[in-house]
C-alpha cells in the first residue's frame, strides 16, 4: 500500500495549511504519479509545456531605437522557428533611405553581405507610379522599393510588419509590409518577399537604413514556439 507523507522543512518557520473549502461534497484529489511542484497563478510556464493549440507568437524582446545605425536581435532558434518583428514609428534620420535587413549565421559576429538575398517586391505611393523590383542575388535584404523609400521630414514614419519563416531551416523566407508617409509625405506601401539563398540557420537579424541612422522606432520581436 502506498502512503501519503506530509513532511515539514527543518529550516523554515512558516505554517503551511491544507484547508478545506466551504462545501458539503466529498472530494478526492489524486496526486500525480511523478515528481514536481504545484503550479500556482503566478507560476511561469515554459512554452514547451503548453498544448499545441495554446501556442502562439509570444513577445521575446522590445527595443527602442534612438539614433542607432542598426537594430539587431539574437534569435532563440532552439525553441522558436518562426519570428515576427513589428516596428512602430520607424523614423529615418536621412531622407531617401531604404529599410534593409541582413542575417547572421554566427550569432551576430558577422552578417552575410554576399549575393545571398533574393527578393520580389512591389510598392506604390498615392501620387506616383507602381514600382516592382526583383533580384536573385542582392547583398542585402532590401524591404522598401524606390517608390516607397523613406523620407526624414516631420510626420514621415513607417509601420512595418515582418514575418520570418523557417529561420532554423534551409532558405529562410521573409514577408514584409510597410505603410506610412515617405518622401514628400506621400502615403506609401510596400509588400516585399525576401528569401535567404543560404542553407545555414539564421541566428541573428539586423535592420538598418541604406543611408543614415534610425532616428526612432520601437522594434518588438515575437517568436512562435516549435
Amino acid at each position, binding site marked *: 500500500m502506498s502512503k501519503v507523507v506530509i513532511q515539514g522543512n527543518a529550516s523554515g518557520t512558516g505554517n503551511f495549511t491544507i484547508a478545506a473549502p466551504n462545501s458539503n461534497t466529498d472530494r478526492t484529489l489524486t496526486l500525480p504519479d511523478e515528481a514536481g511542484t504545484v503550479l500556482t497563478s503566478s507560476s511561469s510556464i515554459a512554452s514547451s509545456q503548453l498544448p499545441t493549440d495554446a501556442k502562439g507568437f509570444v513577445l521575446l*524582446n*522590445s*527595443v*527602442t*531605437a534612438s*539614433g*542607432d*545605425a*542598426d*537594430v*539587431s*536581435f*539574437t534569435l532563440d532558434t532552439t525553441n522558436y522557428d518562426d519570428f515576427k518583428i513589428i516596428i512602430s514609428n520607424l523614423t529615418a534620420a536621412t531622407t*531617401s*533611405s*531604404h529599410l534593409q535587413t541582413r542575417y547572421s549565421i554566427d550569432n*551576430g559576429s558577422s552578417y552575410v553581405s554576399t549575393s545571398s538575398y533574393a527578393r520580389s517586391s512591389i510598392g506604390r505611393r498615392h501620387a*506616383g*507610379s507602381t514600382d516592382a523590383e526583383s533580384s536573385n542575388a542582392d547583398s542585402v535584404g532590401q524591404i522598401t522599393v*524606390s517608390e516607397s*523609400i523613406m523620407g526624414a521630414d516631420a510626420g514621415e514614419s513607417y509601420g512595418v510588419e515582418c514575418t520570418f519563416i523557417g529561420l532554423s531551416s534551409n532558405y529562410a523566407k521573409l514577408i514584409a509590409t510597410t505603410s506610412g508617409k515617405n518622401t514628400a509625405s506621400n502615403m506609401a506601401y510596400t509588400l516585399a518577399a525576401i528569401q535567404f539563398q543560404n542553407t545555414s540557420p539564421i541566428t541573428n537579424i539586423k535592420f538598418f537604413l*541604406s*543611408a*543614415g*541612422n*534610425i532616428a526612432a522606432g520601437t522594434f518588438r520581436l515575437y517568436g512562435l514556439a516549435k
Partner: protein
Amino acid sequence: MTRYHNVDGNKIPFTAEEESLRDLEEQQAAEAVALYNAKQYARDRQNEYPAIGDQLDALFHAGVFPDDMAAQIQAVKDKYPKS
C-alpha cells in the same frame, strides 16, 4: 560622429573598419537613389500620358495604319458594335 549598433537593446559603437564600410555602403546607396530620381520625368510622363489603347485608337481613326492591320481592327469593332 560615432555610429552605434543596437544589439538586443544594448548600444555598441562601430569599429573604425565598420565605419569605413558603412560610409562606402551609404555612398553606393545615394548613387542608386540619384540614378532613380534622374528618371522621375519619365515616370511622371507615363502617369499622365493617355492610355496606350486610346493612342492606338486615335492612330486608327487618323487612317495611318497599314490596310491589313486596319482591317483586323475594324473586324473586331464590327463584331462588338457600340450598343
